[in-house]
């Protein structure tokens, strides 16, 4: 059973600070009303003995346990050094102002907790309150950065500065999707998601601690090979060739992707994961752009064929390095604008965050593909037959594009035009809930982390999807969740697999361009094949 946590006990070693019992989870709507989640796969004893996993039922970072008290002390000291750097303008001009504002003004009213899907779906487990990790950092800040001395304990509360605190806090920073729904409801304007990101950042930039999926196999791989997927430019071109061929066969429309066209109007950058995992998406993009007569190109420059920028989730230096490569590729080709494919964090990284990183001739206009697609759909250049999409469709709002960028309507206006049975989830738009895979979780599954992603962080989205299709209980009727974001798609795929939702409810998922192509009368009918895998 869950119990109330205090802030102070966070620093006290124990085997496991918090646990989510299966009974605590909120029951799902039909047909999952009688469904019981499987029990947690317990972390192996050898794992518990060798790694820091005393936060909750799962573990992401697998930090090796320090060998001695001295080593523990050194690491804790290093954390404090990083904490101090986080509050200097030289080291953190990028986020200092919002950070200080959020550190100093929380009224601890807990309004934000009820906005957080992780907290709610865990059955209200204190450890997942948006405020819990923030309050720990706040107390450390007043004690060790503002040097409040003993008085800070009275005025701001205490928490011990031990290795246990550090190890748990890093781990806890990775139990938040950075969706910022909590920040939206805070009456004061405090941003607990930012605080989670700053904790991640301090650990990455000072201690070199970050999930390997984001750092070693993420940004580092992208900076050296060119893509987080490990594809170099030869492989990616080869794969796109294959996609062209495959698409041509499937649609009856001869297709040839464009590479490195100098002076093209549009440089389209996909999340490269699409090419490997959802090839119909880049294929559909190419088909639409060609049919609409857009002057466009892909780039085979290092990192420029992968719009991913995981730096957004954990590290400003890595962020800037990748953003720079994207801009340089566009500059080299002399394109008029960069267009972000169906990837939420690519949108946010490239269009919003990089805006105050790119200066001079690297500041090339950047646009959302949703907007370009709306223009194309409205232009009448594609012959569309909405009746080809005559099945129930709902739309998932990727947090990065919607709540964090205000791109709300273009994708909906497209759907209203081409999907006769389009219906909204509740809530939607800027009030949406995260898919539960946000901030990179969708690509993390080591140990039993995937279970946490299904049982806790993804549960609200699955609930919303079920509710949206409640009027269509027949599993023989295919239903489509349009999720125009690679990361969200990965999470939704895993959710559907976990719940057997394809068989039990008839749920399918995919992007936006696939629906457009499916409605094109120039394309062989049945582009969207619900029977295939």
């Amino acid at each position, binding site marked *: 059973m869950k119990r109330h946590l205090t802030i102070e006990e966070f620093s006290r070693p124990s085997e496991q600070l918090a646990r989510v019992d299966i009974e605590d989870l909120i029951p799902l709507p039909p047909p999952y009303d009688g469904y019981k989640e499987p029990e947690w796969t317990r972390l192996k004893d050898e794992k518990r003995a060798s790694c820091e996993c005393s936060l909750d039922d799962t573990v992401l970072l697998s930090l090796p346990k320090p060998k001695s008290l001295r080593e523990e002390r050194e690491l804790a000291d290093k954390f404090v050094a990083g904490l101090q750097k986080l509050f200097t303008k030289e080291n953190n001009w990028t986020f200092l102002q919002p950070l200080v504002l959020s550190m100093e003004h929380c009224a601890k009213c807990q309004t934000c907790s009820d906005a957080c899907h992780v907290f709610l779906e865990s059955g209200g487990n204190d450890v997942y309150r948006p405020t819990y990790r923030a309050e720990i950092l706040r107390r450390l800040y007043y004690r060790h950065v503002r040097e409040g001395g003993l008085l800070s304990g009275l005025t701001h509360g205490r928490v011990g500065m031990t290795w246990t605190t550090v190890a748990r806090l890093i781990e806890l920073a990775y139990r938040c999707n950075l969706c910022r729904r909590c920040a939206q409801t805070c009456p004061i304007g405090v941003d607990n998601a930012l605080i989670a990101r700053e904790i991640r950042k301090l650990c990455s930039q000072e201690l070199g601690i970050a999930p390997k999926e984001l750092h070693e196999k993420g940004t580092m791989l992208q900076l050296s090979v060119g893509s987080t997927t490990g594809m170099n430019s030869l492989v990616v071109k080869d794969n796109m060739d294959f996609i062209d061929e495959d698409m041509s066969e499937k649609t009856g429309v001869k297709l040839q992707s464009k590479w490195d066209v100098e002076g093209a109007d549009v440089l389209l950058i996909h999340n490269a994961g699409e090419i490997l995992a959802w090839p119909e998406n880049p294929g559909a993009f190419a088909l639409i752009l060609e049919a609409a007569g857009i002057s466009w190109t892909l780039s085979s420059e290092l990192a420029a064929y992968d719009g991913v920028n995981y730096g957004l989730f954990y590290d400003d230096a890595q962020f800037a390095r990748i953003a720079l490569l994207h801009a340089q590729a566009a500059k080299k080709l002399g394109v008029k604008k960069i267009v972000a494919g169906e990837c939420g964090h690519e949108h946010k990284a490239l269009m919003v*965050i990089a805006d105050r990183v790119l200066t*001079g001739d690297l500041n090339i206009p950047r646009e959302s593909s949703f907007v370009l697609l709306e223009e194309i759909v409205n232009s009448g250049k594609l012959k569309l037959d909405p009746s080809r999409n005559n099945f129930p469709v709902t739309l998932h709002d990727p947090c990065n594009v919607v709540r964090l960028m205000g791109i709300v309507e273009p994708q909906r206006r497209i759907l209203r035009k081409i999907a006769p049975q389009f219906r909204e989830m509740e809530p939607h738009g800027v009030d949406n809930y995260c898919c539960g895979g946000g901030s990179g979780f969708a690509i993390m599954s080591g140990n039993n982390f995937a279970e946490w992603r299904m049982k806790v962080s993804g549960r609200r989205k699955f609930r919303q999807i079920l509710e949206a299709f409640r009027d269509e209980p027949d599993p023989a009727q295919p239903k489509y969740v349009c999720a125009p974001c690679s990361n969200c798609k990965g999470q939704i795929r895993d959710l559907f697999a976990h719940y057997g939702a394809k068989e039990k409810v008839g749920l399918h998922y995919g992007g936006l361009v696939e629906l457009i192509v499916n409605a094109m009368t120039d394309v062989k009918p049945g582009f969207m094949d619900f029977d295939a895998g």
Partner: protein
Amino acid sequence: MLYRFVYGALIVFLVVVIERVARLATLPVHLRWELYPVAHEENARYGGSFFEHLDWWKRKRNTSMLGELKVMVPEIVLLKAVHEHNRSLWYRSFPFHFGLYLMALFVALLVGGGVAQAFGVEIGASAPSIGLALHWATKVVGFAALGLMGLGALGLLVRRLTDPTLRAFSATADYFNLLVFIALAVVGLVASITSDVDFVELRRFTQSLATVHLDAPAPGGWVGAEIAMASAVLAYIPATHMSHFFTKWFMYHSVRWDDRVNTVGSPLEGRIVSQLGYKVDWSAAHIQGGNRKSWVDVATEKPEPKP
């Protein structure tokens, strides 16, 4: 003595507010981190942004000050966000905050009345027109302010003590702060009911204060205590998280709604360029700033993979 104390408190209040504003306002421009709906946007109704337009950089932006006001006024006066997202808290928080607003109005009425009195305006239950109006306005606002502030703070304190979650997150100062407001309300009410039911004494005091008659006799007893306490509270507020009454402006305008676009050759770009020259001290293997590298150096180098 009491006069000096009040002036002193006022100065402390102003100094701390200015210091805090200056500290926040002079921090570097940060990366964009807006959160929709952004109130000055054309489509703020549903949270839309300028990014929804094709070639948005070519379009003239229409931002609306009115839109910001439409959000800010109900937020400040009625605490709309709390009302919407945390109703049970609102029943306690709203009276408290509204009581504080009335408190400010009460002080303004007292000062205004004091100044008027200095100019010979007679104020009281049997005074003509404006004097009568000031008398009743002060009286109604004064009691309402003390009552609401005290009840609201009491409600908040009880909740903080009884709700295990709120308790877990509270530091000693959080209880202390609420107690201070309750005590002020109690002292104020006792003072008014026992010896200053028409606030005549308080008004005479604000008159001397406003006209700097430091040798005028200062009130003692409950009224004196009330004045001293109120001044101390005033000086204390900006040093705590309660400074949100003015820092909230930054939270909205410098963060949530800060969607200023960086354009080539703009002053914003100038600031960014200079900040990109800051030296970096992060020491993880992929950065190794050591206060030698600038942000530009870091961003343009290829990190060494882990050995």
